[in-house]
């Protein structure tokens, strides 16, 4: 079995197995960590070339769908990141969760997510990628709502699903459009058919739809609203899904499809603009948060914007920088989330303004937070510095307005990082809660991540130079020109960087410390809440307006539909009313019977008592029988008489129990009903005349007349039809009678049992 397949399937296999564990069993966590480690090892073996990178897995070939996996360097870069961070998070969560939590469920969902995320990066088919993309949304929904008894958790879970799910559907449409235009869903094939796409008018809508998917998944403006609410998830989930991996699926998509989609001129500038705006605006929002997780959430959104800007051009140098920062961000932000989790665990609060001094009581925790924050701020020699230098380098060569935005973003980032690190050191309340450093098992996973980000600052090229270069080559098709180094020489980017850090320091020191501006509700949140509320209210009003439950209204709708439909079609299709029907001449008896029938029918309308109405109905039935008799249909006449003879007493018997007979209770709608009724009656008669007048073929019944005696042995053709030619109809008819009988019996029996029991 190829290692790629094994690694991708492992989480999906483990996920249901975990559910078999009993509730307080921490071994579920260990198994998950082991699965991540195993998958990680598999990917390493693929990266070293010890195992094939491609596995063909069929799905629905004729539709162009396959589950084939292709672990190119870009996919491996992400896969190693996912399983690596996944391992640390699973290990952390094993000791972090309270012993009364539902371990099996938590880790089962976590593995489901891990597998889906691996599927996103490894799929070689656009539709399979979409499958896993959506599955990450669903597993994220389950994980955010893990503490489902809390209202905020449910709210956050739904919001994440609503936003990423709707974006996903837009993206699906974009994908299908791209697939139709290019004639394939295989990403490798698509990459060569950019020219086809560029020449097609669908290109722009398709790209915009895919951008919608990217922006929602990576929580970019104006879809940033879901990530802060998603912070209701247990902290390991926030670290894993909402900082290190899932939110980067959008970025992965940009890296993966960039070369194809950047043939559409809209792609790069749109993404870059959204990225920059998000980076700056959400940096500002992060600065205003007191809740540590909210601060980290906005900071994540802001950092994702930064990476998006780097990946948008689909050029080798910027892509390499983007991937490096993506890795950095996974390390420092993952660490920060885990450490905030530790704080929450120890201090039972996440509010920055309520914390006591940490530096004394929790020195190691604080040190790790400070190092990670410095890396995020872009202070040398941390990893964040290296990639932020490259970012500034890229933008300083661009439009001055964009450069300004970028610098502003960097300043704000530095400011909230200092606020975080220094704010925790001293504590805003000397009497606030004081915890102590947790056990090694909780400290080690974040420590490893922090060590990674420090290492990435000092030896960036030695540690990840080769993988990033290979991933860049795989993503863009060209090689990186430079290499990573902590010291680039004194250029404009270094000065800008220094400026940003010092301005950030100043902003924090001079302003933030004195007056923390309160965080208000997001506008996007208000729009979201309002939209959902309106949706439900309007749906309720609309539905209530026509679901009256009143029978005559329902029947009117049906009649109106058929009458209007027939009228419109008849008018538009050139329907001609003609009378080319040669029937026998009507004799005096015929006319007399017809007149009786008409009078009887009219009498049912006018009858003022129940008895009169029922008798009028009976009279119409008996006149019908006479019409049958006069029209050479003796069997029909007999049957009709029999049926009427039974029906009339039945009616009388049943309705003897009813209250006084009421006529025309509906006053207002009666004229409309009269119109409908006349249209129905007249329409039927006219259509019937027309259908008979233009008969296009001889009726099949001559066959019955011919064969009745010889082949079927009966003289009464109608009877022969019933029992032989069309015996199946009769079988059905008898069944209807029998079933009606048992149904009546059951209804009455149960009703009387109920009455008796009452």
């Amino acid at each position, binding site marked *: 079995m190829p290692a790629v397949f094994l690694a991708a399937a492992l989480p999906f296999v483990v996920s249901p197995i975990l559910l078999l564990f009993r509730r307080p069993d921490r071994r579920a966590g260990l198994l998950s960590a082991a699965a991540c480690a195993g998958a990680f090892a598999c990917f390493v073996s693929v990266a070293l070339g010890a195992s094939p990178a491609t596995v063909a897995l069929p799905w629905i070939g004729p539709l162009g769908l396959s589950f084939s996996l292709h672990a190119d360097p870009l996919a491996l870069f992400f896969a190693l990141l996912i399983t690596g961070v996944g391992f640390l998070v699973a290990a952390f969560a094993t000791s972090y969760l309270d012993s009364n939590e539902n371990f099996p469920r938590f880790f089962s969902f976590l593995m489901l997510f891990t597998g889906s995320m691996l599927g996103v990066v490894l799929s070689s088919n656009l539709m399979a990628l979409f499958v896993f993309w959506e599955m990450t949304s669903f597993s994220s929904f389950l994980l955010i709502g893990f503490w489902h008894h809390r209202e905020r958790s449910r709210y956050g879970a739904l919001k994440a699903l609503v936003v990423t799910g709707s974006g996903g559907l837009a993206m699906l449409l974009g994908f299908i459009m791209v697939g139709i235009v290019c004639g394939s869903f295989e990403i490798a094939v698509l990459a060569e058919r950019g020219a086809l796409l560029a020449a097609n008018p669908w290109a722009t809508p398709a790209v915009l739809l895919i951008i919608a998917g990217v922006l929602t998944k990576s929580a970019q403006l104006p879809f940033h609203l879901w990530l802060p609410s998603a912070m209701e998830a247990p902290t390991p989930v926030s670290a894993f899904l909402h900082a290190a991996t899932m939110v980067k699926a959008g970025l992965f998509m940009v890296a993966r499809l960039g070369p194809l989609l950047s043939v559409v001129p809209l792609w790069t500038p749109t993404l870059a603009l959204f990225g920059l705006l998000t980076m700056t605006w959400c940096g500002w929002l992060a600065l205003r948060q007191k809740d540590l997780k909210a601060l980290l959430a906005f900071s994540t959104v802001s950092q994702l914007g930064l990476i998006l800007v780097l990946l948008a051009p689909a050029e080798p140098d910027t892509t390499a920088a983007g991937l490096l920062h993506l890795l950095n961000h996974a390390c420092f932000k993952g660490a920060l989330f885990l450490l905030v989790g530790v704080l929450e665990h120890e201090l039972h609060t996440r509010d920055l303004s309520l914390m006591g001094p940490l530096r004394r009581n929790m020195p190691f925790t604080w040190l790790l937070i400070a190092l990670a924050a410095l890396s995020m701020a872009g202070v040398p020699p941390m990893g964040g510095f290296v990639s932020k230098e490259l970012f500034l380098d890229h933008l300083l060569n661009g439009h001055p307005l964009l450069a300004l935005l970028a610098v502003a973003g960097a300043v704000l980032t530095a400011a909230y990082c200092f606020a975080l690190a220094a704010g925790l050191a001293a504590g805003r309340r000397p009497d606030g809660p004081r915890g102590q450093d947790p056990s090694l098992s909780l400290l080690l996973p974040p420590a490893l991540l922090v060590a990674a980000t420090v290492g990435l600052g000092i030896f960036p090229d030695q540690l990840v130079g080769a993988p990033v270069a290979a991933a860049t080559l795989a993503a863009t098709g060209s090689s990186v020109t430079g290499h990573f180094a902590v010291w680039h020489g004194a250029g404009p980017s270094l000065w800008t960087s220094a400026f940003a850090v010092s301005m950030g320091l100043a902003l924090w020191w001079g302003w933030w410390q004195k007056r923390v501006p309160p965080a208000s509700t997001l506008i996007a949140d208000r729009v979201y809440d309002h939209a959902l509320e309106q949706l439900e209210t309007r749906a309720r009003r609309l539905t209530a307006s026509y679901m009256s439950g009143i*029978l005559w209204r329902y029947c009117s709708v049906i009649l109106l539909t058929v009458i209007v439909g027939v009228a419109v079609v008849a008018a538009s299709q050139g329907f001609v009313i003609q009378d080319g029907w040669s029937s026998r001449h009507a004799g005096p008896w015929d006319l007399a019977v017809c007149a009786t029938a008409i009078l009887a029918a009219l009498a049912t309308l006018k009858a003022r008592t129940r008895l009169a109405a029922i008798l009028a109905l009976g009279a119409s039935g008996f006149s019908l029988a006479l019409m049958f008799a006069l029209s050479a249909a003796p069997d*029909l006449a007999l049957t009709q008489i029999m049926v009427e003879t039974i029906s009339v007493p039945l*009616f009388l018997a049943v309705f003897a129990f009813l209250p006084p007979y009421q006529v025309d209770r509906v006053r207002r709608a009666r004229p409309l009903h009269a119109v409908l009724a006349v249209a129905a009656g007249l329409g039927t008669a006219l259509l019937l005349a027309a259908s008979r007048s233009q008969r296009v073929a001889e009726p099949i019944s001559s066959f019955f007349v011919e064969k009745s005696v010889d082949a079927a042995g009966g003289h009464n*053709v109608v009877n022969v*039809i019933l029992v032989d030619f069309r015996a199946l109809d009769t079988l059905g008819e008898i069944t209807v009678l029998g079933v009606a009988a048992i*149904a009546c019996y059951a209804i009455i029996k149960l009703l009387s049992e109920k009455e008796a029991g009452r």
Partner: protein
Amino acid sequence: MHLAVLTVVAVFITCGVYLLLDRTLLRVVIGLGLLSNGVNLALLASGGLGPGAAPILGHGSAAIVDPLPQALILTAIVIGFGVTALLLTLAFASYQSQLSDDLEDLHGRLDDE
């Protein structure tokens, strides 16, 4: 003959539909009865309405009317009878348990909708 029959069809269906759209249980049931009578007559008309003898062979070689619609109507009458019986039962049972024969009262809208 067909004009007379078509008139009866039109009147039956008109009266039937008008009663069907009433609020009173019994009038709805009577309306359906009229409607199905009208429809059966329409089926008969689709066979052509003669001239011709009853479709019973062996009485000479006279032309007979189209037998197929008659067979269809027979089936329809019997089915209609079964359904009417069930309808009556339901109307009765429904009235017994709700004590109203006004379909406006039997709207079925629940409080939690």
